[in-house]
């Protein structure tokens, strides 16, 4: 093959026609109130880990719900399970459970 000096870029788009939604559906069965998230970002604003690392809890669970799982499992390791996010959530989402269930559904993914 000729050396072109570049490779063909892969699309960045979230493709809902091909993404595997099964882990996402399992997560929402376990923590159904996560569906009511309105992305206020309160959880991320108060997050102990998010203030020290690039951990963005709101973004991570939104990605899972879109069927995007790459690196999410590893990101969840940054959570200290302090529980402050649960106190601030205006929708009453059990955010600590979300962290643990994401690890569980993605652990064998």
């Amino acid at each position, binding site marked *: *093959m*000729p050396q*072109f*000096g*570049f*490779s*063909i*870029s*892969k*699309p960045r788009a979230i493709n809902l026609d091909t993404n595997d939604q099964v882990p996402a559906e399992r997560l929402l069965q376990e923590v159904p109130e996560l569906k009511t998230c309105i992305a206020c970002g309160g959880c991320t604003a108060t997050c102990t880990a998010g203030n020290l690392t690039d951990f963005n809890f709101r973004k991570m669970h939104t990605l899972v719900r879109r069927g995007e799982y790459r690196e999410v499992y590893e990101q969840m390791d940054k959570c200290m399970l302090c529980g402050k996010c649960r106190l601030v959530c205006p929708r009453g989402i059990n955010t600590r459970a979300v962290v643990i269930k994401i690890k569980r559904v993605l652990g064998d993914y």
Partner: protein
Amino acid sequence: MRRNSWKEYQKEVADDRYYYLRSCIRQNFFPGSEKAFLKIVGEELGRDIFDDPAHTSCTGIGYHSDIVPYETIMTVVARQFAMMTEAGYENAAVSCITSFGVYTETLETWNEFPDIEAKVRENLYKATGREFRKPRNVSHASDIIFHHREEIGRRAKHRLVNRFTGEPLRGVEHIGCHYAKIFPREGIGGVEFPYVLAGMIEAWGGSVVDYPERRHCCGFGFRNYLVQANRGYSVANSQKKFESMAPFKPDFIVANCPGCAMFLDRWQYTIAEIEGTTYGEDGRGIPVLTYEELAGLVLGYDPWELGLQMHQVDVEPLLNKLGVDYDPAAKYLVTNGRYIGCPEPAMVNMGAE
């Protein structure tokens, strides 16, 4: 598809007395296209078109690569207009989409900011002693072919019909971004459902493919292509289009922009080499034509006179469907019979058969 909205977007296209503004790169990419345009407009249609050796590149590639400042390119444009004025013409016929975008953008800037126009006039006068009148009409060369499409259709030697099946040939039309994405009113059919190339295909007997990524940019993008390390996203855009159009089994692609026609053609080779993926019938690629080449084939011009041997993807499957009588042995011979060499065989280009 009920593509009727194009009738709401009409622009004036001059009917005669054109001053031809050539592209800097098309003469290398598709060396027969501009010659074919002059022949079609001048000889077939009997219109007055002036091919002025004194005009220059519009410097649009430099402009879009942050090398040529806007003030400079506006002065270059002013010089083109001065040459046109001196030659006694008022209707610009622009060969290139990038240039067309540059001309329309410049004229709109002068329209909005007359002080800038005055400054450019002053710069041009100081540098060259020339003065100019603004054109009465600026049309892209594809607008002009569109304008005369019925007349070209009446002279057709070949209709865009598959002679083996009797079905209309399926054409993908690809419009250069700077044709109407800068000023939708400047494009026949506007920006979402442009009709300039679709109208040619339909007028000459073919059917137009509307595929999901029809409106997507080819990926040329100037600095995306010019910088080798960035070509990965340039080619990815073309690939996205090929993947999207492939299920519709197009017989050909026609484009009205130098960069688009070039890259939709050449990237098929690149994708074949890098990923082993080919598109089109029998995996031999989808032939890509300029609008002049398409018009030339319809009018019965010799494909090698049109420069079709310079394409990456072999055009022979399309010529066979059209019923074009061509000499395979003459593919790499120029008019005086000199052999110009042939490319190495590749997945989308068989070289000399």
